[in-house]
């Protein structure tokens, strides 16, 4: 996936992100991926996705608790994204968003910035035979979850706005919806620009609708 990301703006002088210190640490990813904790987490996720409405909140809390207490949260977040995007027909995307948006700063600090860097690297090396590429659903979930998490508003905005000129409809849809979840004037301004300028009529229409609803919602609350 070749994203046209505004990479520099994501890492400008205002960014509070620090590269993860665990990156260079030697570890055995295979051992982590097959650990008992991860297996139990996966089972909890599958139960949550397949559950009736009456059980959702309890199971969501259980998944969130396991994620927040995980020794390596990034492995668990990755697993959550894998399982939930594969189950999108059973509301997997919204399950992922509802869990990840409650992880406070964890999602940005432990996962999203590094994931962005890795995705940039992959998209800048198209000649490499890389079997795995994230699909739009991954970014859709991440962008919407970041918009709702507890990190500072300007940090959330900076991350989302980095995708503001993405060429694909699927990715831009995530950007527009995430901007709609933010409260800031900057988000509203960017939504206005997208609604008037984007080449894809679907994205323009969606941005207009999101903006209109924010105006309505602001008037009512």
């Amino acid at each position, binding site marked *: 996936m070749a994203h046209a990301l505004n990479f520099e703006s994501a890492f400008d002088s205002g960014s509070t992100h620090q590269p993860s210190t665990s990156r260079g640490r030697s570890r055995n990813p295979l051992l982590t991926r097959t650990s008992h904790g991860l297996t139990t987490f996966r089972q909890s996720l599958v139960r949550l996705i397949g559950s009736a*409405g009456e059980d959702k909140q309890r199971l969501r809390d259980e998944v969130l608790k396991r994620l927040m207490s995980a020794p390596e949260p990034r492995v668990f977040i990755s697993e959550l994204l894998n399982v939930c995007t594969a189950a999108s027909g059973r509301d997997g*995307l919204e399950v992922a968003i509802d869990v990840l948006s*409650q992880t406070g700063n964890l999602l940005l600090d432990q996962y999203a910035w590094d994931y962005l860097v890795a995705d940039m690297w992959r998209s800048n090396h198209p000649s490499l035979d890389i079997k795995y590429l994230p699909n739009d659903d991954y970014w859709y979930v991440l962008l919407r979850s970041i918009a709702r998490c507890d990190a500072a508003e300007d940090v959330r905005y900076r991350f989302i706005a980095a995708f503001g000129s993405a060429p694909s409809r699927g990715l831009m849809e995530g950007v527009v919806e995430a901007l709609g979840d933010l409260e800031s004037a900057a988000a509203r301004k960017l939504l206005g620009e997208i609604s008037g300028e984007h080449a894809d009529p679907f994205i323009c229409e969606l941005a207009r609708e999101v903006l209109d609803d924010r105006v309505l*919602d602001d008037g009512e609350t």
Partner: protein
Amino acid sequence: MSISQLSAILFVEPVVYLRKLNRRSDWGISGDPRDGRVAHAAERVFETDPTSKYSLYRVRSSVELQRVAVGLNGNRHSLVENLDLISFTPDELSTCGIVLTETAGETRCLAANRLHVDVEASKDQLTRLCRLAMDAGRSSARVSKSIMRGVASELTTFGCHATTDAADHPCGCESD
């Protein structure tokens, strides 16, 4: 946009079957190249899987649309979330040979659960269904956050189970 305007977009009256969209782009827009749009929708809206049953809700009025919306969003962390829907008419479903089976839904609104049907269909049937609806000019419709805020408030007054956290709270919608 009001719930009655949404009902009109979805052709709720006299009766339609609603399917929830995971993402707005799953249905696309009328300007998209038709064949690609149909294939994309059939795959994304129904996540084509020969072993799966697909959930639809039979809706005949704005009131039923409200209940289904609250029921579906009752599965979320917050009731006030955007909800994107697409509708299919009974004629479209029967033209494609798609059989509906009434089964109880699994939302927290008991009245919405009574409107639930299961569908088993092949990829070809679902593709044909999407094409028919698109040929008829069907658009997706969003129950937006501002609308959901009003709907949730109204159904809270009504005593809808989906608007409470209590496990043993009766659903006021059921007695209506």
